[in-house]
């Protein structure tokens, strides 16, 4: 609990800005300082604002908890020690708690039990009500609250301590059926409301208050209030004190375990459940009281609480743990204590809490050394610097208490990577050099589909749509080195750490290389480079051949056909040529036969043979195949449109009206000019 105490104070002592170098020697002019500060702000303002914003966002809607980080494990108070002994039956027990009866035996103590008072009342009337706060239904304005009276008993008032041990106080029983979720309203939380009615105490208050005058003036204020209430008592009404305790909170966690309790009671005029008072501090009339002062001041109710099984079974209910482990949500408006002894509020009983205690003490050790952290900001291309110091281990950007130097450095490095932090040992503590990280990669590393969804296709889906494959690393267990401050020292060679990406694969939107249009995932498999002969190249080879003036049309046709064939198939070796010629006949044979190019084709084959690329056998076989194709086609096939016609139109679109201006008929090239 002490964690929320004094350490929350902002104790960052800001040292006056001191600029490095000669400026500090000479007395710098005001303008110089201002300009310097301007540069400093320029460099650090934007990332600082970003981190300030992120801090606030993380407070409101945290995306992770710092205590779960390995290097912040000391912030995690819970341990997993229970897991070792955990058994499934434990779950059952927790559930069975709802079937236990709650037995309360209590006595009432006023602020100052006066021994010498006469006609003393020995008992007061205690009424215990079970308050059920139900879930809000649609029509409800606020949460409906049901109060179920469980019983009324006379309990002893200021009993003698000897008497206490001898005879048990009268006890009240809350039936387990009350806790069963049987009602129409879904119950959100259960709490016990104690109401103590004290009849006819006329003189007592006055006396008590008079005696209390010797005390510190803190007691003065409640007494005045009491006096006002005693005025009303004179009108003949009884005084009523109330207190409320949560049994099950809204998460259905049991808050009241077996044990002895002492509850400070408050007068009826005060609203028993005041949200405004739901604080850690006990404030009486605007003044803060030390945490346990109310117990010595106000009236208290002492009671023993016990969960009892149905058939006298052995109580399996958990025993109350020390205060610090539970009251984290602070919904209870008053202090509760488990111990009967006021002097030792933090009674340490079991080994578990012992462990926590020692750990806390360990944590507290470090700040006690009075570490001073000097932050040295480097800016203006790292030529200027400005130093600020803090006396604690809070992160200057998100005020997170890191508690250890190692944790602080690790946190800075990992959470504020827009900066570069270098650790330098310092006699008084540590120096951290802060500079802007020029290589900061702020690119999105989440699911790429979130941002790279196909523009323009958002509502055009007709059914399932393919997505690009992305691999997320869900669990990564890198080899951890032993924590050491040396990892924050400036590395000698300045090598950049290899950052692993945790989302690999095609985590971006691709584009078509020809049109720059977004590539849809279903188009991923097609490679635009799969075709060896793009259309323009096919046209180009045709037009280029067409330009020759001294090559006749039959030769041109066969050459074009062959070129397209070679380009499409991508032949690379001499020894492929026999096969290539045969494939050529198979694919282009009908065209050659219909266009009456057989002799030109034979010339082509003979030429290939002259180049030593095909064998005579290939010529024979190819020509035989061509004759076969010719016969298949029959004799009376009308010749096709000239090939030139189709190619020429294509060519004319490609801007071949060259300098000659005569079109392709009057080409500019001759084959004889080729071998000059």
């Amino acid at each position: 609990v002490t964690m929320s105490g004094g350490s929350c104070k902002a104790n960052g002592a800001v040292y006056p800005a001191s600029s490095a170098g000669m400026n500090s020697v000479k007395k710098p002019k005001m303008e110089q300082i201002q300009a310097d500060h301007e540069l400093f702000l320029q460099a650090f303002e934007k990332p600082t604002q970003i981190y300030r914003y992120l801090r606030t966002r993380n407070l409101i809607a945290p995306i992770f908890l710092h205590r779960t980080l390995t290097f912040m494990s000391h912030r995690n108070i819970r341990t997993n020690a229970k897991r070792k002994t955990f058994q499934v039956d434990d779950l059952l027990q927790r559930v069975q708690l709802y079937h236990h009866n709650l037995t309360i035996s209590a006595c009432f103590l006023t602020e100052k039990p006066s021994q010498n008072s006469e006609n003393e009342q020995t008992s007061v009337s205690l009424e215990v009500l079970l308050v059920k706060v139900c879930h809000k239904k649609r029509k409800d304005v606020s949460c409906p609250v049901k109060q179920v009276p469980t019983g009324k008993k006379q309990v002893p008032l200021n009993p003698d301590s000897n008497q206490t041990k001898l005879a048990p106080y009268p006890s009240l029983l809350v039936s387990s059926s009350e806790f069963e979720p049987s009602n129409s309203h879904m119950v959100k939380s259960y709490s016990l409301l104690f109401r103590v009615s004290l009849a006819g105490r006329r003189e007592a208050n006055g006396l008590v208050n008079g005696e209390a005058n010797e005390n510190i003036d803190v007691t003065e204020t409640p007494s005045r209030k009491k006096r006002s209430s005693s005025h009303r008592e004179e009108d003949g009404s009884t005084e009523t004190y109330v207190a409320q305790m949560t049994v099950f909170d809204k998460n259905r966690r049991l808050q009241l375990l077996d044990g002895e309790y002492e509850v400070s009671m408050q007068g009826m005029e005060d609203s028993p459940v005041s949200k405004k008072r739901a604080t850690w501090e006990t404030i009486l009339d605007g003044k803060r009281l030390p945490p346990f002062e109310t117990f010595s001041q106000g009236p208290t109710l002492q009671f023993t609480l016990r969960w009892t099984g149905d058939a006298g079974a052995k109580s399996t209910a958990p025993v109350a743990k020390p205060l610090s482990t539970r009251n984290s949500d602070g919904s209870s408006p008053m202090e509760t204590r488990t111990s009967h002894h006021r002097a030792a509020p933090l009674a340490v009983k079991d080994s578990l809490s012992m462990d926590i205690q020692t750990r806390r003490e360990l944590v507290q050790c470090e700040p006690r050394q009075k570490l001073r952290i000097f932050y040295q900001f480097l800016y203006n291309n790292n030529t200027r610097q400005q130093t600020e110091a803090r006396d604690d281990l809070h992160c200057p950007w998100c005020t997170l208490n890191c508690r250890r130097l190692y944790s602080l450095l690790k946190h800075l490095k990992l959470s504020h990577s827009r900066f570069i932090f270098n650790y330098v040992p310092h006699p008084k503590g540590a120096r951290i050099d802060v500079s802007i990280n020029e290589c900061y990669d702020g690119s999105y590393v989440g699911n790429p589909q979130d941002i790279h969804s196909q523009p323009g296709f958002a509502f055009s889906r007709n059914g399932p749509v393919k997505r690009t494959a992305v691999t997320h690393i869900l669990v990564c267990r890198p080899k951890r080195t032993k924590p050491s401050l040396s990892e924050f020292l400036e590395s000698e060679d300045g090598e950049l750490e290899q950052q692993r990406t945790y989302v690999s694969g095609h985590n971006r939107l691709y584009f078509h290389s020809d049109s720059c249009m977004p590539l849809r995932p279903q188009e991923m498999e097609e490679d635009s480079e799969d075709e060896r002969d793009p259309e323009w190249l096919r046209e180009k080879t045709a037009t280029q051949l067409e330009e020759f003036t001294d090559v006749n049309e039959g030769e041109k046709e066969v050459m074009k056909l062959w070129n397209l064939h070679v380009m499409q198939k991508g032949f690379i070796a001499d020894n492929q040529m026999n096969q290539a010629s045969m494939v050529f006949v198979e694919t282009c044979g009908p065209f050659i036969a219909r266009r009456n190019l057989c002799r030109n084709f034979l010339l082509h084959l003979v030429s290939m043979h002259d180049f030593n690329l095909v064998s005579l056998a290939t010529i024979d076989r190819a020509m035989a195949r061509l004759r076969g194709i010719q016969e298949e086609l029959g004799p009376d096939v009308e010749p096709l449109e000239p090939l030139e016609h189709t190619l020429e139109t294509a060519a004319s679109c490609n801007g071949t009206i060259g300098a000659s201006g005569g079109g392709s008929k009057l080409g500019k090239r001759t084959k004889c000019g080729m071998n000059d």
Partner: protein
Amino acid sequence: MGAVCRSRSTMVLTGKRSEKGPACWKRRVKSEYMRLRQLKRFRRADEVKSMFNTNRQKIMDRTDVLNQEWKTRRIQNILSAYQTLYVSPLRPQCTVDSGFSEFPKQVIPLKTLNAVASVPVMYSWSPLQQNFMVEDETVLHNIPYMGDEILDQDGTFIEELIKNYDGKVHGDRGERRPEALVTSSYTRACRRAGCCSRNHSSSNDSSKKFPSDKIFEAISAMFPDKGSTEELKEKYKELTEPQLPGALPPECTPNIDGPNARSVQREQSLHSFHTLFCRRCFKYDCFLHPFHATPNTYKRKNMESLVDNKPCGSDCYMHLVQAEEVKSPSKRPAAARRRGRPSSRPGSPSVSSETKDTDSDGEEGTSRSPTPVTLKLTCEPEPVDWSGAEASLFRVLIGTYYDNYCAIARLIGTKTCRQVYEFRVKESSIIARAPTEDEDEDTPPRKKRKKHRLWATHCRKIQLKKDGSSNHVYNYQPCDHPRQPCDSSCPCVTAQNFCEKFCQCSSECQNRFPGCRCKAQCNTKQCPCYLAVRECDPDLCLTCGAAEHWDSKNVSCKNCSIQRGAKKHLLLAPSDVAGWGIFIKEPVHKNEFISEYCGEIISQDEADRRGKVYDKYMCSFLFNLNNDFVVDATRKGNKIRFANHSVNPNCYAKVMMVNGDHRIGIFAKRAIQTGEELFFDYRYSQADALKYVGIERELEMA
């Protein structure tokens, strides 16, 4: 247009009225010249217009296709989609309140459409999978525009650029016009003027056909720089003569399949095929090699003897010949002689050079054969007509099949082997003699040694090459020096290149690279090909698998990826570094081939000129190939051109000798994962690659 016509008619009128003095002619010439120029300009404009229209039509067609596709896609209206899906008071809404009670309040859900990120700039380029050689540009094709501020900063840049091209800019009119254009238009003007004179001044014509000298005088006076009157006359004759319909240039062989086929010599029939075929690309008029070797110097290594011993049928010429043989065994025909030693005929199939052109008409009668005839006919030849095409084809085939008349007849198709044989007898004077054995001794073969010793020397040689010359790599050009061994005078040796299979030297040449005999993957320095930074040659390396599995990508040899185009699938996206970047689709291993860096192959000079512009654009795709050439992927290229520079790259570039061509391979420097961006070090190993990409590199590193 109308104005022009009017002016011409008045011109004609004045010409008629006035005296036929030289001044009048001069004026006439001038006006005619202007008119022709105008006409030419209009024609050109029309051509451009029609071309624009056809291109426009193409685009419209494509758009229609796309629109059709979009229609089938059933796109939902964003507005209605929101109205139906998200009517909720919690959503932000947009309300329009008119302020008048009779008009209801209009409410619509508010939906913010996120801004779509713009893509980096891309200048258009043509896709290419193999390098493409282009000539040097002699004129500046366009004046580069790179924003006003750059030009303001450096006003002299454009001037200096134009100076690089000797002041020539494409499309310039006036005195900067290319010479050819001027001449052609001018000579046409001559002709036109000549016609004019014929029509309008027939009185003083010396001949109906030829224009008077006065015209030429006038033209000469008008354009003194175009030569004297006599020269113009010559030119006129030259230009008017070949204007016969259907005429072809004299060097063009008529189509052998066409009606005008003539009987020509073998060389002439095959001339186009021989000169245009690229033996290295297997294509006609290829894009990569400007010079093609003709095949008549190629040696035949594997002579097939396809002469069947058996006659092809009952009418086969062999029956005749055999009958002859029986009669006179001393005079054996060529066929029989060949049968005796069929494997020793590696000579060239060249047609003897002393033969004269035969006339196109009537081969039978004009066949001059005074030389001793080795073949005799036992019976009378059948009287058959040989068309020009058939005769040409016969001459072509006889150079390949020699005396396998059955095969020749089969290929000609329209003649029997007997007819072929008889024709052969008639033509015997002009037919090539059988090549003799001594012809192939062009290059002395290396001495026969034990194979492993030969291998050892080769490997040593490769090692030497590697040590000695790392800086200079010269382009390979097949050597052709007949009857000379590949010694210090051989261009391959001086350029420190190996002789390739394309060289004209003997296959036994000492400078030839022998290929590897690996049985492994050829990806270590154990492989001599790998060691020599060459890809395995599928015609030399027969054991490693480079010559197998043409259709599949699973080749055991890993050293033939560039030639096979075994590239990886690359994807284009905005780079994480600068501009566009290229990303890999599948993971690759270290040293795996990724892609070839393709582009235009330009000379070093051209690269210097282009580089100046690219440096200004701060974007260069130049890549040094060797000492002679540079690859420029600016205008043509493949996707790897988008790979960015890095000093810590994941890829490296390697210039390899691939079947006689230097090509740039991009390989993985380390294992690369799916979707990683590819980088390589632009600096590579060659120092001068730096000067073209320097600016860009600095920009990116900053």
